[in-house]
């Protein structure tokens, strides 16, 4: 361990001093930590974050939020800027919604199928038609259209915004340097952290929901656009220059077309992020499917939550498949007969809409719906009665949850709280130093200090304890599965479709099954986080194992290494960057869901955000949101290996 850390951390130094420092890095860090520990014990004593170091922001924040509420209708800033933004958002969402309603269910379904057919082929088209059919069958047609309308506006805005930012960052080094850390950080923040600031400005409602979605979904588009523009084959650009192309000609004929794969991937990611956020934003008035899930979860009505959750998943799968297939298609072959095909698709959509209209069936017929909620709830009741507890030998699911809470979550949380506050900081610093650089360590410690200063030390440690427990479970299960899948192609083939589906699902829907299985509380929140983060960890580990140079594997085999020796001596060490990335991604994803777990009794910071929103106590919510940002920053930096390039998960 120590040697590899040194290699990774040491720059090719010329000065002997830095050389020495780099070589004995681990020992140095250990020594410093020990000294700090002794000093701390002598000078600072124990206990939680001392009250004298914290600042109570609820007063000023409350004043600010009151001021905004008072001036929302009169202050020029709101009248002439935010007001217009808000109106534009409301108008466009309404317009899209009206178009969708006017097309009727027949028109929308036919349109979705035909667009999918043109973009991606027959199979995605059939999937799309079936998905919309199921949405109708479940009695969720209207909420689905509401969510879709919000999505269309939010995706259009975030793709546009991301494109502009990405172009700037792709063409200008200075913009790139300024923008990259911001985008990197935004990528690791939980969705919940974005809600409060927009609510503060726009109040609860559709504009806030759309804008939170845009802010959440634009970064991947910006990142990938910049990545694509920067990654353009230098040889092609030089060839263009050698033929006398102007800067504009080079951008339009070479740079942008060369980046089209990244651009399409950016659109795909933006759509997926937007869907995820559009559902979560139900907490701040997005309406639609997310709202149904949210209301149902609030009353622990698993059946209703599932009926609204299934359309969300279907929407996610369809959007992902269609955009991904479209990307692969446009990347591969030239488009043929495009105009004609699109005309046919448009004509088909209009025809279907007209037929639906003339048949007087604009809204989904009530007779065609299936009430799954009641059925599911009966099943859940049966589960509650028979599987929750008292199952011989293995115990029930609620028993597991209770035991997990008593034996894992409570001790970790109490342990963290028992630790003197400064030792927590020290621990963060040492961890960050071991994995990353002085800079990441400084950021991590500062973020942790900020949490203390904000006065939310205790709930933050509660959240942290849930994150740690979930991450531990995720990593053990994920790395083991990933290593196995990395060594067995058959297992990988089996896992791939499962991972594909799981990775497309919005965070919110993971809460539904865990509530059904474990009820409410911290354990279900942790379970949802594990399930959400597991696919990414498995996938990254598998890729890391597979990316090991086959020549190295072959040479180790030729030296007579056993399979076990190969795994421990060759594959795992060489896959170290991938494993570190898996840890980093695991932590980030777990945190996102642990926070949302506040909706199902996870408590801690997530609950404070929800509470703040529900009670209109924005100050509490904002402080919790800021603490979430800090916690996210800290966790990301602590797990961020030195000299890594940020990969897109």
């Amino acid at each position, binding site marked *: 361990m120590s040697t590899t850390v040194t290699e990774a951390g040491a720059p090719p130094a010329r000065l002997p001093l830095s050389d020495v420092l780099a070589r004995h890095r681990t020992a140095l860090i250990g020594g410093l930590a020990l000294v700090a520990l002794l000093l701390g014990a002598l000078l600072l004593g124990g206990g939680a974050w001392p009250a004298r170091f914290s600042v109570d922001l609820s007063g000023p924040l409350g004043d600010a939020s009151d001021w905004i509420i008072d001036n929302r209708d009169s202050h020029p800033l709101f009248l002439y800027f935010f007001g217009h933004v808000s109106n534009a958002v409301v108008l466009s969402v309404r317009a899209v919604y009206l178009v969708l309603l006017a097309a009727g269910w027949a028109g929308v379904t036919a349109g979705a199928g035909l667009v999918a057919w043109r973009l991606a082929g027959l199979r995605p088209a059939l999937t799309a038609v079936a998905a919309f059919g199921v949405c109708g069958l479940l009695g969720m047609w209207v909420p689905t259209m509401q969510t879709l309308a919000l999505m269309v506006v939010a995706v259009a805005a975030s793709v546009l915004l991301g494109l502009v930012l990405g172009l700037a960052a792709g063409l200008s080094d200075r913009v790139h340097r300024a923008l990259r850390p911001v985008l990197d950080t935004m990528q690791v923040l939980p969705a919940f952290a974005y809600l409060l600031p927009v609510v503060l400005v726009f109040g609860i409602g559709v504009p806030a929901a759309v804008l939170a979605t845009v802010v959440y979904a634009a970064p991947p588009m910006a990142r990938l656009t910049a990545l694509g523009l920067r990654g353009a*084959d230098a*040889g*092609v650009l*030089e*060839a*263009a*220059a*050698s*033929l*006398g*192309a*102007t800067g504009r*000609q080079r951008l339009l*004929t*070479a740079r942008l*077309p*060369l980046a*089209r794969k990244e651009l399409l991937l950016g659109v795909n990611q933006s759509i997926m992020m937007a869907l995820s956020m559009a559902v979560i934003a139900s907490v701040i008035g997005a309406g639609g499917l997310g709202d149904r899930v949210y209301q149902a979860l609030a009353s622990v009505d698993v059946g209703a939550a599932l009926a609204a959750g299934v359309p969300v998943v279907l929407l996610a799968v369809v959007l992902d498949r269609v955009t991904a297939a479209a990307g692969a298609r446009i990347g591969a*072959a*030239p488009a043929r007969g495009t105009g004609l095909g699109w005309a046919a698709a448009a004509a088909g959509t209009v025809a279907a809409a007209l037929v639906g209209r003339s048949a007087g069936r604009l809204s989904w017929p009530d007779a065609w719906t299936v009430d799954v909620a009641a059925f599911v709830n009966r099943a859940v009741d049966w589960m509650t009665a028979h599987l929750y507890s008292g199952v011989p030998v293995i115990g029930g699911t609620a028993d597991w949850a209770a035991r997990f809470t008593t034996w894992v979550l409570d001790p970790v949380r109490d342990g963290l709280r028992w630790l003197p506050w400064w030792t927590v900081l020290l621990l963060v610093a040492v961890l960050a130093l071991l994995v990353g650089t002085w800079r990441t360590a400084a950021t991590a410690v500062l973020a942790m200090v900020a949490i203390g200063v904000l006065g939310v030390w205790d709930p933050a440690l509660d959240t942290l304890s849930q994150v740690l427990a979930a991450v531990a479970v995720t990593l053990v299960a994920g790395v083991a599965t990933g290593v196995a899948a990395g060594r067995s192609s058959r297992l990988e083939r089996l896992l791939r479709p499962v991972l594909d589906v799981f990775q497309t699902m919005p965070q919110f829907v993971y809460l539904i099954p865990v509530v059904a299985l474990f009820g409410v509380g911290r354990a279900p929140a942790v379970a949802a986080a594990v399930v959400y983060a597991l696919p990414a960890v498995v996938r990254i580990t598998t890729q890391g194992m597979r990316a090991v140079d086959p020549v190295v594997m072959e040479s180790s085999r030729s030296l007579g290494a056993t399979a076990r020796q190969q795994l421990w001596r060759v594959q795992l060490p060489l896959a170290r960057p991938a494993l570190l990335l898996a840890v980093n991604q695991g932590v980030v994803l777990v945190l996102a869901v642990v926070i949302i777990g506040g909706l199902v009794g996870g408590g801690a910071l997530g609950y404070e955000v929800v509470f703040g929103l529900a009670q209109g106590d924005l100050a509490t919510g904002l402080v919790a949101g800021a603490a979430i940002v800090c916690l996210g920053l800290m966790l990301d930096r602590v797990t961020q290996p030195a000299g890594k390039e940020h990969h897109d998960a």
Partner: protein
Amino acid sequence: MNTEPPAPSEPPVSEPPVFSVRELWKVFGPKAGRVPSDPALAALGPAELRERTGCTAAVREVSFDVRRGEVFVVMGLSGSGKSTLVRCLTRLIEPTSGAIAIDGEDVLSMDAARLRRLRRHRAAMVFQHFGLLPHRSVLDNVAYGLEIQGVPRAERRARAAEFVAKVGLEGMEHRRPAQLSGGQQQRVGLARALAVDPEVLLFDEPFSALDPLIRRDMQEEVVRLHGEEGRTMVFITHDLGEALKLGDRIALMRDGRIVQLGTPEEIVGAPADDYVRDFVRDVPREQVMTVRSAMRPATAAETDHGPALAPGATVHEAIEAVVRSGGTARVVEHGRCLGVVGHADLLGVVAGLAPREEAA
């Protein structure tokens, strides 16, 4: 070797050179401009220069002329600065100091618009890694240069189709570059450069990424094109065989400097220093050297006997003639006998013995 155009050993003085390069420097690194102007720094070797200034001099004080219609080869190992040099010619890389003229017109003082015109109409480049647009068909790739010039779509496609045929890619107009072999891709690159009808073609190691057999085909293609059109070419390569095969004149570079500039025969027959000598040691000399450098003055009896050879004939060809006739062969130019070659003279060349003084 028969296809090789006759190398004019005496340049026609009247015509100005296509490219005229004088004391050209390209230095990479911080404050690069001070290196050429400071004689103390300019005299440093590569390692010392890097140590002292953090700079790398890719091209050092290079001067040469490219004559109209010739194939001018710049040859050197990787890192010798040859690719940088060719990019300086059209300022794809901005030279640090020196002078470049194309047809007597100063290149370094051109503004952006004139430089673009130069690149669009007068010098087109063929790249080692082709630099094709992967999302466009072969035809549109070939038409790309014309598109940049603003030629209307129908016209540029018609012209491009001509050049697609010229490089032997008929029937592949609608394929994507990824669907072609390396050799075919480079034919597209070549057609793209030809399509703009440039005054001079610049080749940057165009065939280095190709398999040997395909490389030979492509070299012959270039020889053929040059024979048909007589277009001026600047050809960069690290392959000595390629340089000798294609070049009318060769500039041999090492560490940014030209260590020798001459015809293939001069380079092989009279290496300027040990580096060049080492370089050309394994060259099959009989393929490069001509009887002009192998002949000796004829005695009276020899002037009338034996087969006649042109002075540009290779030693390889002479050996065949000498073996067939059993005696000496005459070197005849414009009906005048310049000298004769016999067994001993030819073997002397093959053995690499110093050219005999009297053979001049």
